[in-house]
């Protein structure tokens, strides 16, 4: 006699330890196997695009901090670069280098969280997460030294950066840069070869190359699928064309490749910071920008390679002090498009790590 079974629906989230915020996956399960999955967003929607239309260009910088709060510096950078492009402002050389240093430090910090949370989702009881928090803490200390805050930095300004670095910053950064590679080696030693992690992550949640391009994936998700596309190389902004670094790419596009790409990107970021420190010129860090900035009528799309992918700002100006339209291209929302394709047929345990390997930040997804 055949046993009659029927699928059942389970809500993974909105309050769930592995949804990295308030995200809901409405999954239809057959036992442990996922038959269907529908993502539900919007629990953290704050209407930042609408809010920004009522504030001046400078006042919007703190709002960009609150998009992807794990990569505030990158958001700042993307936004101020878009505004500078719109208003035709050129910024001092030193500020460019400081921006690159901050953005790369932020990339390391963000990937530490991403990888740590991914390993935590795999079930490694907090240990890798806490090891990685330790290094992130050091980066946050550096950010705090520069701009006085540890999460919402609000450091970049239209025309440069808000303040020059204090004198103790460079020695501390140097120390950090010398320490960091050995810590990355430790992460590798901790779990990269671990049989259980390989069994869990290899071959799971494969995102084929063609699909990755078709869904407009970006960042480590796209590169994990084997597409050599990094905006720092493809469309060099700021002073990235002056640095030597490689783009690590994965081969199969599974969760392990995305994890591996993040680890390798941290090494490359350390390389970039080292070069930027050597080349850092003296001088001003902020050009004079009128207090109430009126960019000419027009529109601009500025994009950077944020830790989670291509972060773009589409701004339309009507020559007033506030943007007429302020649109964010959120990398993680678009990366989530393929979530259903990656998850179907896998088990709940896999669903959690596939979701973790995309490394999303809900504040950016919902805005």
């Amino acid at each position, binding site marked *: 006699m055949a046993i009659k079974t029927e699928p059942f629906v389970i809500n993974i989230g909105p309050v769930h330890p592995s949804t990295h915020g308030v995200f809901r996956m409405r999954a239809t399960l057959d036992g442990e196997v996922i038959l269907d999955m529908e993502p539900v967003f919007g629990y953290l929607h704050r209407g930042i695009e609408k809010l920004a239309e009522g504030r001046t260009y400078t*006042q919007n*910088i703190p709002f960009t901090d609150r998009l992807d709060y794990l990569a505030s510096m990158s958001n700042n950078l993307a936004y101020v670069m878009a505004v500078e492009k719109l208003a035709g402002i050129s910024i001092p050389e030193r500020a460019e280098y400081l921006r690159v240093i901050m953005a790369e430090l932020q990339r390391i910090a963000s990937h530490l969280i991403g990888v740590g949370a991914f390993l935590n989702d795999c079930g490694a009881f907090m240990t890798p997460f806490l090891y990685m928090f330790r290094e992130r803490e*050091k980066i946050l200390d550096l950010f*705090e030294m*520069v701009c006085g805050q540890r999460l919402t930095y609000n450091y970049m300004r239209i025309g440069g950066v808000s303040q020059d670095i*204090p004198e103790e910053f460079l020695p501390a950064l140097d120390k950090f840069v010398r320490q960091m590679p050995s810590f990355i080696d430790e992460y590798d030693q901790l779990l990269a070869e*671990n*049989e259980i992690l390989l069994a869990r992550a290899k071959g799971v949640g494969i995102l084929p190359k063609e699909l990755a391009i078709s869904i407009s994936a970006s960042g480590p998700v796209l590169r994990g699928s084997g597409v050599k596309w990094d905006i720092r190389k493809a469309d060099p902004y700021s002073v990235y064309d002056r640095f030597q670094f490689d783009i690590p790419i994965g081969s199969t596009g599974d969760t392990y490749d995305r994890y591996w790409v993040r680890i390798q990107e941290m090494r490359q970021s350390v390389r970039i910071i080292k070069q930027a420190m050597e080349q850092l010129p003296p001088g001003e860090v902020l050009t004079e920008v009128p207090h109430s900035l009126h960019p000419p009528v027009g529109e601009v799309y500025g994009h950077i390679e944020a830790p989670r992918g291509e972060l773009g700002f589409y701004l339309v100006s009507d020559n007033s002090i506030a943007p007429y339209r302020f649109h964010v291209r959120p990398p993680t929302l678009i990366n989530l498009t393929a979530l259903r394709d990656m998850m179907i047929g896998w088990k709940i345990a896999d669903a959690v790590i596939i979701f973790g390997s995309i490394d999303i930040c809900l504040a950016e997804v919902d805005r």
Partner: protein
Amino acid sequence: MRFERYGIGVAKGMALTFKHLFRHPITTQYPEEKLTVSRRTRGNELVWDRGKCTGCATCAKSCPQGAIRIVTSVSTEENKYLVEKFEVDIGYCIFCGLCVESCPFDALFLSYDYERARYRRQELVMAKEGLLLSEKKQPSGYARPKVEATLPKQTLLLDRDKVKK
């Protein structure tokens, strides 16, 4: 999926955690042990210098949240504005520091303190007496290089972490 590595990967990971057993813990036991925050810390509340303030309200204009409220009146004998009301609703404040940066007379500072929890919401609205610069209310060096030079150096985890490489 195979166990290709004969358990060496697990052994390596366990060796690493064992090594960490003998490392110095990085925990700070907060109320007893306090770290020195950054000299540019954007702590809770604002600090206001009544003598320098001219009542120009640039800070209120630059605030993205509209948390600063200024009411001024004209004083004819002294030929300047008198600040009648200077209120900051800390509940709205996002501590972005734009007001401090935009102040043309260096009359506004962010606070160096960070332990400013309140029990009631109305206590979060700071009127001008509560904001005044005093012994207890230390200004932070954010956007104020002169103040910054007087403050102690920040403690860094980089220096505390006793890992020799």
